[in-house]
């Protein structure tokens, strides 16, 4: 019985955390409560991985730990949850990043209670999104995850925060509004085989939705999700949003929130509308490949650390969409791994940038220099994260990109091969912008004498960093267990695209 509700706890625990947070009085209480809540959450996520592996050994269903409660019976809306290998991995990622985010925000002076409440509400949305099987519930959680961003960036952000917050919210909510049309389109065609109308993803996957309907609604659904996955040319919210957001929010945003896009594209657009995917994949491959290259080149031109990372995210996440559209298992495996590894890396990057900015009060690369001498811990980790990001073997990024390119190259068609080669070339560019930053910012003489007395790294910052660094290395060194977790869950998706 307890095992049955193992997933609902992912919503209940943060909801309780929020409830307790409402009654906290100051920063000290608020951060303790938030920390306790996210620790429990991380424990649950780790526990879930083990229970999932155990359950998977004896259960062949697409989703396990399912629970189904009728919600609105006239629309056949259910509160229906379950997980497969992909979602458990993403849940763990979320739990890690939320916890690291709480540590990084340890000194949040301004309205701390409200900050942690918004942060945790956002995580409720993300958790709920990853465990939903019902399209309606999924959509509800999607919007719950997006809207706290407005307050998080708007209240605690820096720079043109009001503008960035508004731009981000409107673009993401606009995308979700378009998504709503796509969801309704899928819903009203879910009875194509004579059954009842349903929002249940697993049920719809069995239905043969008419081909012209699929071709109509695939791009709508795809774009609806892909905007949050920073699909070119709808990525413009992301650099501005990242640059203005406070550190923990950037981490959560790039690390987790943008993953909703890839996951939604995979779980809804490709899974439910496979014929549409086959029909449209060429078009979106061009867009995403362009995004990969464009993001990498844009990152070269930037001097603001956060902008560099934001564009690098556009590039890396473009690769996720690119791989998903290749419609084969190896590439998909790579896409999921890339989501995870990018989530950890970017979160780490943003955490480090936050620490550097907190000490030097500038994010301009050209004004920094020789940081390795004054804050060695942060700088060393920055180098490691950079190497992981450019896909050095031994880190998670390599495993992911290897899978993606091998998978993508499996398509015989000349179009796919050319697109793949172009996308691969972006890796070289990645090396350029990362090594450039490392060279200018970390090496060389200390440019500003004020930097000689920079504060040493604090214990809570170290914990946050280690939390993110450990999985990056462990995925890189031993990727097989994770690949296995994911690969087994990919078979159902092959149904329509073979």
């Amino acid at each position, binding site marked *: 019985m307890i095992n049955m509700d193992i997933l609902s706890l992912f919503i209940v625990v943060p909801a309780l955390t929020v409830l307790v947070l409402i009654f906290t009085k100051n920063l000290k209480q608020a951060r303790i409560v938030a920390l306790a809540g996210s620790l429990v959450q991380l424990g649950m996520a780790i526990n879930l991985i083990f229970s999932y592996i155990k359950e998977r050994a004896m259960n062949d269903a697409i989703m396990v730990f399912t629970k189904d409660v009728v*919600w*609105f*019976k*006239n*629309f056949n*809306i259910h509160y229906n949850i379950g997980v497969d290998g992909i979602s458990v991995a993403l849940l763990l990622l979320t739990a890690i990043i939320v916890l690291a985010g709480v540590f990084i925000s340890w000194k949040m002076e301004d309205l701390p209670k409200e900050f942690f409440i918004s942060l945790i509400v956002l995580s409720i949305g993300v958790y709920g999104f990853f465990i939903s099987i019902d399209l*309606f519930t999924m959509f*509800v959680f999607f*919007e*719950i995850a997006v*809207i706290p961003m*407005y*307050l998080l960036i*708007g*209240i605690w952000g820096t720079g043109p*925060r*009001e503008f960035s*917050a*508004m731009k981000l*919210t*409107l673009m993401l*909510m*606009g995308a979700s*509004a*378009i998504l*709503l*049309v796509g969801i*309704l*389109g899928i*819903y*009203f065609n879910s009875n194509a085989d004579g059954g009842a109308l349903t929002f249940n993803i697993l049920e719809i996957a069995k239905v043969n939705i008419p081909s012209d309907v699929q071709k109509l609604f695939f791009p709508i659904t795809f774009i609806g999700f892909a905007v949050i996955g920073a699909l070119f040319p709808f990525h413009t919210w992301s650099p501005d949003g990242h640059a203005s957001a406070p550190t923990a929010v950037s981490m959560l945003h790039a690390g987790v929130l943008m993953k909703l896009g890839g996951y939604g594209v995979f779980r809804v657009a490709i899974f439910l509308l496979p014929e549409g995917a086959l029909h449209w994949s060429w078009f979106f491959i061009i867009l995403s490949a362009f995004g990969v290259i464009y993001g990498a080149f844009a990152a070269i031109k930037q001097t603001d650390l956060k902008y560099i990372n934001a564009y690098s995210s556009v590039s890396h996440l473009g690769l996720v969409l690119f791989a998903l559209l290749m419609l084969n298992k190896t590439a998909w495996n790579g896409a999921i791994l890339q989501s995870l590894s990018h989530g950890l890396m970017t979160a780490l990057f943003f955490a480090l940038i936050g620490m550097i900015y907190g000490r030097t009060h500038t994010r301009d690369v050209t004004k920094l220099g020789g940081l390795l001498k004054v804050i060695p811990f942060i700088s060393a980790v920055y180098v490691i994260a950079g190497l992981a990001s450019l896909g050095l073997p031994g880190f998670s990024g390599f495993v992911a990109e290897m899978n993606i390119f091998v998978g993508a190259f499996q398509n015989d068609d000349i179009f796919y091969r050319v697109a793949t080669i172009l996308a691969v070339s972006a890796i070289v560019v990645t090396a350029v912008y990362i090594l450039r930053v490392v060279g200018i910012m970390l090496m060389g003489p200390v440019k500003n004498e004020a930097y000689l007395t920079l504060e040493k790294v604090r214990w809570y910052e170290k914990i946050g960093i280690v939390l993110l660094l450990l999985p990056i290395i462990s995925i890189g060194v031993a990727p097989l267990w994770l690949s296995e977790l994911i690969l087994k869950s990919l078979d159902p998706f092959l149904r329509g695209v073979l």
Partner: protein
Amino acid sequence: MRQEIALLAIIMLLVIAEIFIPKDRKVSIIHLTIFLFGIHTIVGFFHMDENNLFGGMFRTNHLIHFFKNILNIGVLILLLQSADWIQEKILNQNKGSEFFILMFSSLLGIYFMISAGDFLMFYLGLELSTLPVAALAAYETMKRISSESGIKLILSSALASGVSLFGISMLYATTGSIYFNEIVQMISSTNLTLLGMVLLFAGISFKISLVPFHFWTADVYEGAPISIASYLSVISKGAAVFILMILLFTVLRPLAHIWENMIYMIAIATMFIGNLFALRQQNMKRFLAFSSIAQAGFILLGLIGQSTTGTATVVYFVLIYIFSNLAAFGVVQAISLQTGKENIKDYEGLYRTNPNLSLVLMLALFSLAGIPPVAGFFGKFFLFTAAASKGFFLLVFLAVVNVTISLYYYLLVIRAMFLRKGDNPIPFFKNKIYMRIGLVITVLGILLLGIYSPLYDYIYELSSTFN
């Protein structure tokens, strides 16, 4: 008929109370009214009426009865929210009980209007529901702007009533009857009938403030006392939506293929114009006026999906809309009463001084914007579902574009309250007990009406008997 008699009894009681309660104890009239109307509201939920009276002129069924209950709740919340305003500004002018009597008369008119079984009763109800509100709009006689809004309302609504009466007469001319159930058998799409239908529609659209019959809205809302603005935007509009639905789904059902196109175009125009005009508003009342115009456009999406689902979603949405809009108006009322400030700019930094009020307003605006998990999201999603079920995907697409536009201006208010610190924020103040109860009820409604699904199932059941 029970509810009508009960309300009439309350009005009579108030007249008597006004005579016998001495001048220095007039405050007790407020308590008395809220008490009586509260009981009236609660009693309404027990034993639903279902009958036909006066040879079919007056009829009720469970859905109509339920709708009167919804309106009762709305009026009750409104009374709670305006109690302080009446006590402070109106009682000393010695017109406290008249306020209630006028408002209840208008509500009585609404009862008759939505219970009407023929056009005579409908027209009587329409007039009775409109005229007292014009008097109420001009209630702050010391303010020029209030009188102006009263005059504007009475002139334009008289014209609207006249137009719909003209339309009714044409329907009578072609079908030979004023009874709904006879007209529906005789009606055919001749030119004269269509003209009659359009004129009738125009008259009702005026009350819902659909584009292009919306011009009075912002001016009247701005000038009228806030409780009357919220009465107009919530109660009066809700009732008009309901009567429009009854007319379209019963009397004019044979012409559905024609009015469908009409609704389609008007829905698009209303959503876009309401939203685009709301973008630049500085005054909260005008802002809410345009927002409520846009909301009316969304409601039409439920009407176009004419079916049990359509009916149920419209009723459900109106119920949620009542709570959301009353919450927003309630906060505006509270702030205006304490400080006299009504501009969005004045709200800057409100969260840091009055966190509770800001949260209420934020929830209300999220609900109006349709953001989960608050109720407004469910209302809108279901409306869209109703329209999509008839295949109007393009209309749904335009509607979601509008949802995004509307989000922008709702966020502007939230920006003022939460993001900005403000040079001169409104200082902390405590609301009186009635206002607090009123706001708490609305917040509970906003939080619970959406997730609590049995409510929708119940409305759906009622609606299935209606069609």
